């Protein structure tokens, strides 16, 4: 297991990715100590005026927003949202997708038909409109965004896991367990699941990236949680306040941060893919 966790360190891209992810986790952990200000506190100049769009300076290292908030502090607190969204979505998607795939692939027949039509349905629904609609209906909150994202994104891993299970089901060791009298649950979770686990982890890695992007998109469209500071929301506010052209210090850091994080997650995923797909080895 340790060998599996350290695998991405075997390449330059992997080491870079791990470094980025470790940095994000560290920053998120010590955000209150690291951030110079409360990310939702307004700042005023000497005259008591709201400090709108103040360029980077010694006091505000990444400047302020149109609403007089410190960009650096927002950026630092944004790491927490990224991790919460990424990890929660990945766990939800992983649990739903894996189980749908396992059950559909193992039982086949009507169960498979039903679950796969459900998957087709999930594939047929346009992603962003669905999430935005659901979040708008339910009231924008981080948790609702996470639920909405997870409700659709299990579809890919469900299909991939199912196809894996279809071939594993016919393998000798699974048949041997059935002949020995193992229960379906035991076969599914003791014999089949460990063999699809690398594939599950790979898809979980990619799901983290997609979920973070999806959250940013939802926030950018204005359906984010107003009480949380996410990188997508920073971009949204910069856009709606009409300052996206002049205040580069407001848009560039969250944009770069999202890209860097997503790339890092993808790189880790690619490195795992080498392990699970022998053709890339």
């Amino acid at each position: 297991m340790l060998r599996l966790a350290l695998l991405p360190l075997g390449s330059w891209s992997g080491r870079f990715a791990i470094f980025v992810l470790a940095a994000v986790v560290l920053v998120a952990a010590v955000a209150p100590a690291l951030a110079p200000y409360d990310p939702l506190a307004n700042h005023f100049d000497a005259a008591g005026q709201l400090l709108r769009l103040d360029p980077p300076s010694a006091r505000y290292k990444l400047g302020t927003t149109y609403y007089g908030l410190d960009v650096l502090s927002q950026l630092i607190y944004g790491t927490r949202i990224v991790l919460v969204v990424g990890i929660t979505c990945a766990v939800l998607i992983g649990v739903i997708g894996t189980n749908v795939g396992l059950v559909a692939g193992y039982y086949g027949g009507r169960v498979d038909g039903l679950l796969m039509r459900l998957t087709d349905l999930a594939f047929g629904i346009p992603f962003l409109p669905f999430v935005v609609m659901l979040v708008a209906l339910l009231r924008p909150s981080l948790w609702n965004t996470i639920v909405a994202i997870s409700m659709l994104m299990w579809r890919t891993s469900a299909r991939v896991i199912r196809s894996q299970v279809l071939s594993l089901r016919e393998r000798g060791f699974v048949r041997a367990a059935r002949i020995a009298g193992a229960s379906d649950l035991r076969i599914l979770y003791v014999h089949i699941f460990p063999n699809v686990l690398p594939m599950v982890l790979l898809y979980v890695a990619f799901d983290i990236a997609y979920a973070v992007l999806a959250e940013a998109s939802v926030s950018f469209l204005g359906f984010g949680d107003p009480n949380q500071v996410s990188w997508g929301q920073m971009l949204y506010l910069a856009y709606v306040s009409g300052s996206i052209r002049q205040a580069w210090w407001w848009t560039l850091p969250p944009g770069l941060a999202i890209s860097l994080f997503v790339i890092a997650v993808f790189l880790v995923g690619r490195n795992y893919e080498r392990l699970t797909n022998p053709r890339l080895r």
Partner: protein
Amino acid sequence: MTLAVEMRAASKHFLPGRHLFRRGAVVRAVDRVSFALPPGRVLGVAGESGSGKSTLANLLVGLETPSHGDITIAGHRMTRRPDAALRRGVQMVFQDPFGSIDPRFTIGRTVEEPLLIHRLGDAAERRRRAEEALEQAELRPAAAFRDLYPHELSGGQRQRVAIARAIVLRPKLLVADEPVSMLDVSVRAGILRLLRRLVDEGAMAMVFITHDLSIVGSLCDELAVMYRGRFVEVGPALDVLRRPLHPYTRALVAAVPVPDPAVTPAELPAKLLAGGAPTASGCRFAPRCSLAIAACETTDPELSEILPAHRAACLRAGETAGARP
């Protein structure tokens, strides 16, 4: 003594896949097969791919339920949901030594798994029995193999692990489905000898499924030749090999390569190779049989005793015994 296994007119029919415009005929993968085997005996089942021998194996181990007839393992009748005792009574060894062992389990865990499934013994007891099974499968010393992973073993050694896993529950019947066909010739004999020894020592019978007739003689007591779901010839293994009664058996024996360049290989009749679908009421081998007469098109022969204990399902078996294929 109770029979290890008894099959009474067991059949397995598969409905064909639904096509848009046409419906195929029902596939009779196994068709009215009967046999009985006491402990300590080995029945060889020979046939080509498509003969139904794999379906027969699946019926015996309970992976398939017979459409008609019934199967009894050590006195217990096989049902759709066999109980634990019945499950313990029959185990299987598979063809592919690479796919039949979970790559993520150690050898020890692999062999203990059936015990875990049946919640037999505590950890120490399970370990003792697993080591005993490994020793019986000639993986000695068992302690040295217990902690290895399958990828650290050769094909022959993996097959011994699969055998250890199959015997750890002390089954009454072992079904071996082509257990040596994917192994190097140089290690096959050792596996076959091991299987024979396990049958002789334990109170166990074995059904040995193979397409290779040349390994049957030194291993099996009886031999059944299967063609399109039916046993077409059954008898003492050496008798069947030395004096095949059914034309299909003769073709199978004649087709086996002989490692002697002085021997001129047999030519097979064109009719045998061309094949063709059998008539609904006639002998299923007739379209490929160069001895077929008009009656063969209309009569589906049952197994009948031609020589002592040696039965064949052929109208002309009595008159043609010893003829060329």
